[in-house]
């Protein structure tokens, strides 16, 4: 990307120069927006024109599809288009099956539809990426086809074919225009994301090692990191639909993402260890570690900032290699200085810190190697193959399930009401409610999302009225139709390019195309116009009602569910057996943190900060548990050391399953017992060099587990869950 500042001529005070600067600024900012407007308009009217030419039943569907798929970058537009097409196909198949099974029984048909919608909406709420859009589509397309077919089951096949044809026409037009005409590449965005992820991360390490970050800043940076990790994955998924080599680099990008997550956790564990010691006023270990920190954080810098590009990362890589060679010497110096004034309890802290430092150095070197090799030739790519876990968002199951139930309940209640009411336009209301119950289920603020769309819908009605009954009735020919509709649409598409008016603009577009309903033989019927527009608004209002009435607490970003999921994930580490547990755990926790930050408005409340702290402590705890389990497998089956470690893990699992104070005390006691057993074994002295190293590392892990268990935020969760249980028992 070219920076506008660089191309401003040297004499900015001359009128011509200023004019040029202003023009360039306009091209960079406003020009992009207007290109988008023109692209979307051309695609929409192209789709409409082809639909007219081929005599489709409802040409507006093609046009509406173009508006829905219109996204700023071509990768995102292609991705959404592909999933929309797949979802439509699945939905049509489901509708055909359901109508085929229950052609004469509306009640059974509604039930079957509700189950299908519940399944699809749950899937959509579970995923929260572009795929979830496909699920939403599969759900409501089935409704769109099956509901009108109740009175005429024999027509269902034609309805399905018409729907698929219109949608695919819209998608083809939109893909053609978006990808071929002034494309804005998602891959450029992806490069920016990778760069900012790395440089923010390195800056964080550097600042924290120099003690420049407060705890509060650190928490905020953690949340931001989780958001960046999620953004990287979303960008990668969208960019892989573009022409280019992002697809073949997926493995590398996944590796980069998970390496960054693992490294941050190690770094944070080290940082917390130092902070805890400082808070207790024990400054000897931090002082002994200070030269290592200085050397490491200096190695991270290129001139005075961290590497901004993959090329600059090469320099960091060399400096880290240098640091690695100096590390044994630095460690020895630190140990010697410390030994002169030692007392034994702090010895363990120093050992732990040094062990973590070595791990951090190793992981950072891996990370920087991946980063440096990212833009390289693919042939030179080392085969990391299946060694990577890909980050994928996943909502806590309960929330997804509730989203499905909500959509199903909305469909059942409204469909029955419609069946009884006999209002011809109510079908539209039912479908729209289902659509928005499904669409908004992946948003943490569903009411807000639906409200802004409703505003767009309401705003569109008077304009559509003017356009339909004062302009379109004088129109002859397609060009005139374009001229009379385009000004309204151009304004609203322009509104969608601003984040604040995105929802309103989209709502306006959809409603405008929907109620004007351009067709070859235009029908001008004021009664229908108002019936339809009222039905659409009613549908949206009902969707908001559904969110407010049916389990309103179970939504995306709900703090309580996230906290529970965090404990569950950590519990799984105690007995799960699967490859790459570490990466999986990391990505799950980051995903949950991302959900937490999605559900936040403004600064974090005390409760959110508590959950965030728990997440961080659980990350540390989880890593220590995994490491301990890996080490424990090296001992023979009935060995005393192994038995002690197994007991410790079992006690931890019991605590994680049910965080009661008594379990907490038991887990802490088991940790101490295990540490004592290990130390006794160490004192025997009858062990080999390998075994001694394993013992030392296990002791480090046990020390970390003990330190994490004593963190106040974990006990706070226990208190909190006890209160909830207490209130439940009161209620029952």
């Amino acid at each position, binding site marked *: 990307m070219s920076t506008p500042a660089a191309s401003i001529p040297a004499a900015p005070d001359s009128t011509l120069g200023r004019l040029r600067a202003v023009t360039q600024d306009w091209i960079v900012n406003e020009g992009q927006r207007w290109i988008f407007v023109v692209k979307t308009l051309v695609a929409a009217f192209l789709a409409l024109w082809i639909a007219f030419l081929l005599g489709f039943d409802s040409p507006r569907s093609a046009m509406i599809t173009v508006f829905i798929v219109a996204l700023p970058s071509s990768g995102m537009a292609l991705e959404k288009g592909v999933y929309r097409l797949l979802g439509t196909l699945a939905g049509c198949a489901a509708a055909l099956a359901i109508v085929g099974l229950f052609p004469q029984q509306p009640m059974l048909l509604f039930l079957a539809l509700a189950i299908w919608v519940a399944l699809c909406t749950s899937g959509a709420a579970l995923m929260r990426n572009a795929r979830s859009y496909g699920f939403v589509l599969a759900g409501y397309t089935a409704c769109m086809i099956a509901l009108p077919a109740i009175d005429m089951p024999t027509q269902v096949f034609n309805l399905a074919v018409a729907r698929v044809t219109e949608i695919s026409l819209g998608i083809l037009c939109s893909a053609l225009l978006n990808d071929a005409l002034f*494309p804005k590449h998602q891959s450029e965005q992806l490069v920016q994301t990778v760069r900012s992820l790395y440089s923010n991360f390195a800056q964080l390490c550097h600042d924290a090692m120099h003690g420049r970050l407060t705890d509060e800043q650190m928490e905020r940076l953690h949340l931001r990191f989780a958001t960046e990790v999620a953004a990287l994955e979303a960008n990668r998924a969208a960019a892989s639909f573009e022409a280019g080599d992002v697809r073949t680099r997926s493995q590398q990008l996944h590796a980069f993402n998970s390496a960054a997550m693992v490294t941050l956790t190690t770094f944070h564990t080290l940082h917390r260890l130092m902070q805890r010691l400082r808070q207790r006023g024990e400054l000897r270990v931090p002082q002994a570690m200070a030269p290592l920190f200085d050397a490491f954080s200096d190695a991270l810098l290129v001139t005075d900032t961290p590497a901004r590009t993959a090329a600059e990362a090469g320099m960091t890589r060399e400096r880290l290699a240098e640091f690695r060679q100096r590390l044994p010497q630095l460690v020895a110096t630190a140990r010697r200085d410390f030994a002169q004034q030692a007392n034994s309890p702090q010895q363990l802290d120093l050992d732990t810190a040094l062990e973590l430092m070595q791990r951090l150095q190793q992981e950072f070197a891996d990370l920087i190697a991946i980063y440096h090799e990212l833009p390289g030739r693919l042939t030179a790519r080392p085969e990391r193959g299946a060694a990577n876990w890909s980050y994928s968002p996943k909502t806590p199951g309960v929330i997804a399930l509730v989203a499905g139930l909500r959509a199903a309940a909305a469909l059942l209640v409204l469909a029955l009401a419609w069946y009884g009411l006999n209002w011809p336009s109510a079908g539209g209301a039912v479908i729209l409610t289902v659509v928005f119950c499904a669409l908004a289920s992946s948003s943490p603020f569903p009411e807000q999302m639906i409200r802004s769309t409703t505003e767009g819908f309401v705003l569109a009605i008077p304009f559509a009225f003017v356009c339909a009954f004062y302009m379109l009735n004088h129109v002859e020919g397609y060009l005139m139709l374009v001229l009379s509709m385009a000004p309204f649409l151009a304004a609203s598409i322009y509104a969608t390019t601003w984040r604040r008016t995105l929802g309103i603009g989209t709502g306006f577009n959809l409603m405008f195309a929907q109620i004007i309903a351009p067709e070859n033989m235009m029908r001008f019927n004021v009664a229908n116009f108002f019936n339809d527009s009222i039905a659409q608004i009613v549908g949206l209002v009902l969707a908001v009602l559904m969110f407010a009435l049916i389990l309103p607490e179970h939504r995306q970003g709900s703090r309580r569910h996230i906290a529970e999921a965090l404990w569950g994930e950590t519990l799984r580490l105690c007995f799960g057996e699967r490859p790459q547990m570490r990466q999986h755990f990391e990505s799950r926790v980051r995903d949950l943190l991302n959900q937490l930050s999605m559900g936040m408005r403004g600064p974090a409340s005390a409760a959110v900060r508590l959950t965030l702290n728990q997440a961080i402590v659980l990350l540390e705890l989880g890593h220590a548990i995994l490491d301990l389990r890996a080490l424990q497998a090296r001992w023979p089956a009935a060995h005393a050391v192994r038995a002690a470690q197994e007991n410790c893990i079992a006690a931890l699992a019991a605590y994680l399953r049910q965080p009661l104070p008594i379990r907490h005390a038991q887990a802490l006691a088991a940790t101490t017992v295990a540490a004592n057993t290990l130390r006794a074994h160490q004192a025997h002295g009858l062990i080999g060099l390998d075994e001694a190293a394993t013992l030392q590392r296990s002791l480090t892990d046990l020390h970390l587990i003990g330190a994490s268990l004593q963190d106040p935020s974990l006990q706070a969760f226990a208190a909190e869950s006890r209160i909830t249980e207490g209130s439940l028992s009161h209620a029952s």
Partner: protein
Amino acid sequence: MPREIALFGILMPSLLLVFVLSVALHVGVDWLCGRFGVYRHVWHPALFRLCLLVCIFGALALMLY
């Protein structure tokens, strides 16, 4: 080549089948192009990819008709 093919009793335009087939082919060719860095030597990768699709579809359709 008949204009329409009966698939499970449904009449389908045979060009549609050809189109689906060429899209499938195109996905493979596109993957290969990405894998071997062809797109780095192309001025407008997206347009190039579109033209590839048109060529594949045209070639297949002409072969059949």
